[in-house]
């Protein structure tokens, strides 16, 4: 089975046409039912009706925060200021590579979602903020945008409905923090991608100080399916609080890494062992991070739970972006945590002291433990710094940096102690 896998145990709504190169262009996409939802929305639904069906579907933001998408749209004020939809395609949460695949294989799926969402919130301009490193993906997306303009799905009087929409692809330039929605807005405005203090929320004052909705790629790509088939149809998958399907990007020590789409009541252990094939031959699973590096680490024996927002929370972690990182017994946990913390230290925008200083100190202490120069007091010190980083800053990057530190100490303290006391590593080479 070649990548991208089409495993029969998946439920493929968004990923149904991954791997079909004919689905990338507009003709192939229309042949596969593309732009039908747009016709339906513009032809027979009011913007509020579109918002209502998305609200009823229970679709939650797939970028990491899990905020209900329809509810977010309903916060847009109904005045006559210009308003914007901004698609967050700045996918950069370590372990996550799903939006990339949506845009690579089905760029029109995303565009259709963008156009419908813009109609629902009455936006006049949609910006797709895509990370600059996605060079090959950007080319595909650009081609799709040009096609959509050519066919009249973008521009003036779309499908004769009287709805006008401009769409612009905006290239990021390398900054994880631009994935935070207000950091993204600053970046779009030609500033450093420093997150803003909320409130005001983007719906009140977003891009260019105007009402703005920011949605993730996967969220927007889900919208056409919901509009076309209805809220009840979407709710046949997942749980009451976590309806629908979700893409999981699976990486690390797995036999079949890649993207898998499953209903949100799917079992995490099945995802790791059945779909991804578990760890490489002869290896034991050590730990799993289910939702990108910003969510708590789970021990191998804690993953018998469902992958819903509430299921993972009950199991002590979070769904986050759905970036699953698997680690087998060859992993040095101290090193893995150090790598993740160094990432946050590099990506901290520097506005808030606790984050700017805290991330660097965490990394420094972890490096010394890894080298065998740690002290017993370093463990409480790491926890103390982490406690001072969580919940005290403008955005959650600081919290995210503390998460792997705290969760790994709670679950793998013996690995830290092996480095500190015995100057050894518990990783099986």
């Amino acid at each position: 089975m070649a990548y991208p896998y089409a495993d029969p145990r998946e439920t493929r709504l968004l990923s149904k046409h991954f791997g079909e190169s004919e689905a990338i262009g507009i003709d192939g996409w229309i042949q596969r039912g593309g732009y039908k939802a747009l016709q339906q929305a513009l032809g027979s639904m009011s913007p509020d009706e579109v918002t209502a069906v998305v609200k009823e579907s229970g679709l939650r933001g797939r970028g990491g925060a899990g905020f209900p998408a329809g509810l977010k749209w309903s916060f847009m004020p109904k005045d006559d200021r210009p308003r914007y939809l901004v698609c967050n395609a700045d996918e950069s949460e370590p372990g996550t590579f799903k939006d990339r695949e949506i845009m690579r294989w089905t760029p029109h799926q995303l565009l259709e979602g963008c156009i419908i969402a813009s109609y629902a919130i009455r936006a006049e301009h949609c910006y797709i903020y895509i990370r600059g490193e996605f060079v090959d993906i950007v080319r595909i997306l650009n081609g799709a945008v040009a096609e959509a303009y050519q066919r009249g799905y973008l521009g003036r009087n779309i499908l004769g409905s009287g709805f006008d929409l401009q769409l612009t692809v905006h290239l990021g330039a390398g900054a994880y923090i631009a994935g935070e929605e207000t950091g993204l807005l600053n970046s779009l405005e030609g500033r450093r991608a420093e997150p803003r203090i909320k409130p005001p929320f983007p719906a009140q004052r977003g891009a260019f100080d105007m009402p703005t909705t920011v949605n993730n790629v996967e969220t927007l790509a889900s919208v056409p399916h919901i509009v076309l088939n209805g809220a009840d149809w979407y709710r046949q998958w997942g749980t009451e609080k976590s309806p629908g399907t979700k893409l999981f990007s699976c990486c690390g020590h797995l036999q079949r890494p890649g993207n898998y789409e499953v209903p949100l009541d799917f079992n995490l252990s099945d995802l790791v062992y059945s779909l991804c094939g578990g760890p490489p031959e002869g290896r034991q699973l050590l730990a799993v991070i289910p939702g990108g590096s910003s969510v708590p680490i789970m021990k191998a024996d804690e993953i018998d739970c469902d992958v819903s927002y509430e299921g993972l929370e009950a199991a002590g972690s979070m769904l986050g972006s759905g970036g699953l990182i698997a680690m087998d017994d060859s992993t040095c946990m101290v090193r893995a945590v150090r790598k993740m913390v160094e990432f946050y230290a590099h990506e901290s925008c520097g506005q808030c002291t606790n984050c700017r200083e805290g991330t660097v100190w965490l990394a420094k202490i972890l490096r010394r433990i890894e080298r065998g120069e740690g002290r017993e007091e370093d463990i409480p010190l790491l926890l103390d710094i982490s406690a001072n980083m969580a919940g005290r800053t403008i955005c959650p990057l600081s919290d995210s940096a503390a998460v792997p530190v705290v969760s790994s100490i709670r679950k793998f303290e013996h690995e830290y102690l092996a480095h500190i006391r015995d100057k050894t590593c518990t990783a099986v080479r």
Partner: protein
Amino acid sequence: MSDALHPAVAGAQPSQRAEKNPEAPLFEGDYRERFDKILSRYPNRQAALLPVLNMAQEIRGWLSPQTITRVAELLELTPAYVRSVASFYTMFSTRPLGKHVIQVCTGIGCDLCGAEGVVDKLLEATGTRIGEVSKDGKYTVVEVECLGACGFPTVVQVNDRVFENVKPEDVEGLLGELD
């Protein structure tokens, strides 16, 4: 280029050229057209800063103080402001780079699967240290944070090309493909 380029995507062109000229005029001909198209997509000039810096770097290879001053003039911003923005983003370089900028992802996904070995091999093969320009001006090897392709480690990006599943033994072949 300019005929086919829709204004909606004028500001989202990945750097297309390996050949750079630090002395080249900024934004003439096709590039001027692209510049104007970019400006037409935003309610103010400042918002064009990232796409315009990207284009300037494509033409000149890096963002020198002179380049930054020129971009500032064109967008009615101060050079200090433009520099503060340019230095925030990792894809903008305020120093010269090799013809091939080899970015190796050392994020957690790639690190777990042996990215360090790929970096070592690249440094050995190019005779450089991290961030240096090789003596022949051809290569700069840098470690970068997660490139968002964690299922295909190690991910290496060279200018506007992406290589996936790179192992240390693939390094020589990869370098051979660049010339």
